[in-house]
């Protein structure tokens, strides 16, 4: 009983003795600052993104910490009203546009897409580097808005508050988000062209790892939806600077137009955030269950169905905004339908465990946590898709809990799972397993303690974005804040033990998890041009138990 031969039939790699080719991407082109800032190597750009998204994650996290501390007591006593409003805006803007949207595609995706396709780089390496500068430019504008005095519109920028009533730095922040949108578009374009044109011989569409499918579908959404957000934000800036009457009701504009434009991007954006996480989890669960993914074809079509139907459900954010009841009916139905492919994925992940040979390293713990939390987040999404329930819980903590279950419980768990899973490949070092397992468990516990009470708060009628609240709600907020402390520790721990492993971790072999997939056939860390010779694929993905070799213990 051994799995060591799992990938031996997958590829042919020719050994080479060429010294220059053999050096890893970390050392091949030097270690000067400019060798990093002007690199066009997708792996180094992934590291640049990893650093910038980590910075934004901790900025957004610091804002969340202050919010949770303020909410320990019913009175708004820690910070002023406007400060609180600026904190939740800061939290939302940085977490969504500078962490959740870019993080998996631009770090893990940038690093792995060419490796998984057997390619030397992305199709447009210079565009890839440019996208990082766009992201940083947008991020700096957003940070400038914060340093100048902050923004108080909420991440949703609803008009006419954002266009006429807010006295904060709305335009600069909106332009920051506008700019970083182009970074998303560039990344999406790069992934689409790369997936279409640079697959290595034998790697047919239905042999692609699900991580590739997920990033491909995400890229389509980025390309099609982001321009609409860009327009909506520019119109706000135009209203503020030039007095154009687009959303101003006193001059014939309509605030609801903004909501339609905004959610036409921002609902698909939810899938931009969650689909890559689903891709990561599919890779991890198959590897640690030593099992081919259950229903590969169904998984692929589920990903595509989510991406397509996701474009037609934006109206469920507007059930209480005075939208026609018939529109509500249609959007409600489509919102139920978009949940079907998600449910299929949950069942398939679960079924993948059946007759597996399961081990519980940290990536697996994160992935299993993802499945549980995503299931809870997805099911509560059905509550919100039901109009009568939404009329009550809309804009309450129920919604806050729901999307944190998807975004944080789901997406962030998946990201940490993927980070640990591919850490040996990216850095060439093994991380300390026990510490990582402890962090994964603590994240799961801390997350539920933080956000489960918020479902109850929401149903009781606690609105979101409230600086002060009725004393009846305090015990739920106290539980939530205590959970947030655990969660903060769980997020800080990897910073230390992963940092430690960079210097003191044991060297990783090419394939420490005995996983399938082309990225594991090359050295850890990979050489500058990824492969010594172009790989050739001869089999299905996730071939953990090849036909004809039953592996009964």
């Amino acid at each position, binding site marked *: 009983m051994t799995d060591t031969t799992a990938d031996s039939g997958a590829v042919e790699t020719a050994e080479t003795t060429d010294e220059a080719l053999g050096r890893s991407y970390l050392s091949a082109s030097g270690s000067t600052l400019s060798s990093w800032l002007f690199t066009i190597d997708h792996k180094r750009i992934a590291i640049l993104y990893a650093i910038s998204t980590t910075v934004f994650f901790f900025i957004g996290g610091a804002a969340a910490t202050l919010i949770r501390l303020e909410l320990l007591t019913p009175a708004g006593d820690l910070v002023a009203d406007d400060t609180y409003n600026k904190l939740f805006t800061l939290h939302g803007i940085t977490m969504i546009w500078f962490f959740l949207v870019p993080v998996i595609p631009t770090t893990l995706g940038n690093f792995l897409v060419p490796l998984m396709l057997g390619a030397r780089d992305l199709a447009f390496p210079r565009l890839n580097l440019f996208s990082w500068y766009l992201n940083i430019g947008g991020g700096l504008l957003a940070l400038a808005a914060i340093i100048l005095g902050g923004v108080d519109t909420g991440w949703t920028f609803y008009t006419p508050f954002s266009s006429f009533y807010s006295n904060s730095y709305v335009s600069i922040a909106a332009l920051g988000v506008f700019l970083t949108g182009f970074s998303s578009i560039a990344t999406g374009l790069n992934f689409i062209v790369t997936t279409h044109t640079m697959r290595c011989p034998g790697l047919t569409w239905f042999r692609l790892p699900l991580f590739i499918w997920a990033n491909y579908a995400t890229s389509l959404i980025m390309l099609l939806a982001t321009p609409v957000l860009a327009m909506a934000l520019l119109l706000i800036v135009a209203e503020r600077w030039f007095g154009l009457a687009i959303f101003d009701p006193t001059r014939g504009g309509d605030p609801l137009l903004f909501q339609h434009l905004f959610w036409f991007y921002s609902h698909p954006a939810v899938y931009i955030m969650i689909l890559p996480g689903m891709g990561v989890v599919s890779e991890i669960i198959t590897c640690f269950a030593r099992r081919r993914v259950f229903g590969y074809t169904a998984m692929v079509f589920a990903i595509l169905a989510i991406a397509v139907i996701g474009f037609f459900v934006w109206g469920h954010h507007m059930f209480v905004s005075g939208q026609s009841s018939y529109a509500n009916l249609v959007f409600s139905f489509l919102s139920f339908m978009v949940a079907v492919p998600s449910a299929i994925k949950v069942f398939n992940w679960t079924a993948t465990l059946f007759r597996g040979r399961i081990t519980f390293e940290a990536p697996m713990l994160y992935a299993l946590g993802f499945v549980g939390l995503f299931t809870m987040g997805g099911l509560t999404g059905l509550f919100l898709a039901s109009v*009568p329930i939404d009329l*009550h819980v809309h804009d309450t903590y129920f919604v806050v809990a729901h999307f944190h279950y998807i975004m944080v419980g789901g997406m962030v768990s998946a990201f940490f799972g993927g980070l640990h899973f591919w850490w040996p490949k990216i850095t060439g070092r093994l991380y300390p397993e026990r510490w990582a397992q402890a962090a994964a468990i603590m994240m799961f516990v801390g997350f539920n303690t933080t956000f489960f009470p918020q479902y109850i708060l929401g149903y009781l009628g606690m609105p979101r974005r409230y600086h002060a609240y009725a004393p009846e709600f305090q015990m739920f907020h106290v539980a939530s804040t205590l959970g947030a402390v655990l969660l903060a520790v769980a997020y800080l721990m990897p910073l230390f033990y992963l940092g430690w492993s960079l210097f003191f971790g044991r060297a990783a072999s090419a394939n420490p998890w005995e996983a399938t997939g082309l990225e594991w056939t090359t050295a850890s860390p990979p050489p500058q041009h990824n492969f010594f010779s172009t790989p050739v694929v001869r089999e299905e993905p996730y071939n953990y138990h090849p036909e004809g070799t039953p592996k009964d213990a």
Partner: protein
Amino acid sequence: MSGLSSFISAASERARQTDLLFFSATALSGFIVLLVAGLIIGFSIRYRKNSNASRAELPPPLLREFETGWTLATVLLFVTIFGWASAQGFGAMTPAGEPLQINVVAKQWMWKSEHPGGEREINELHVPADRAILLSMNSQDVIHSFFVPALRIKQDVVPGHTEALSFIADKPGTYALLCAEYCGTQHSKMTGKVIVMEEEDYADWLSHQEADNSLAAQGERLFTTLGCSGCHGHSANVRAPPLENVYGSPVALADGRIVEADDAYLRDSILQPKRDVVAGFKPIMPSFAGRVSEANLLALLAYLKKKPQQEARDD
């Protein structure tokens, strides 16, 4: 009347229906979560690396049947919940009987309401029980959202739109009223109370209110009932000259003259609107000659004169 019950009591039939739907959905979701968690934990134990459980392959047709089976089951389940929820949503739309219409104005950061007899309240809303109430809501500035947890209803109040919200409360009591749409600095303080009273208590309460019967207040009501506000109001869809602070100010006319908006000008504009058309607007206003009595004309003028001070007082 205090504490959590002002939020969570179910004060209408509709609230109880929403609760039934919510708790059914919760039970169902709880079952699904337990099923998924149970399978994950069960498989994790049974198929842990060194266990002796069989790892034989299942035949592919069986696997396909599993896939089809749970896909269809999911679709069926979701359509069922959707059907139930929508039936309730549409049932609640039909208003029962002649409703009592109350006007609500939302502004940063208060709720103002006006009963049919002119009685006004701020951050409180008294309504009779067991009677259809129709709130006609406008916003003076940004988007607000009228939220009464005990009634399980919420309606955004969007500037430029007149939003309707109807309900029948059947349980007298004092319930929380909240603004649910983020509206700026003191969003979390834009709260109040909805007081549901027995019909006779409501009548009693009304009789103890001092309806504002000043000439300007009468004029303001006429401004709405005659339809002036339909075009000149804050939330009008027709483009007409705004009338805030118009009294005593210079007005540029379409033919190039500039006149002062004094009593005579305002009076003429109501009775012979085609005579002095304001620059930049179409001559679409109908004449009100013969439709508005002299007394009412005075009241309207009093309202137009008074408007600025009145706003100042409210602020």
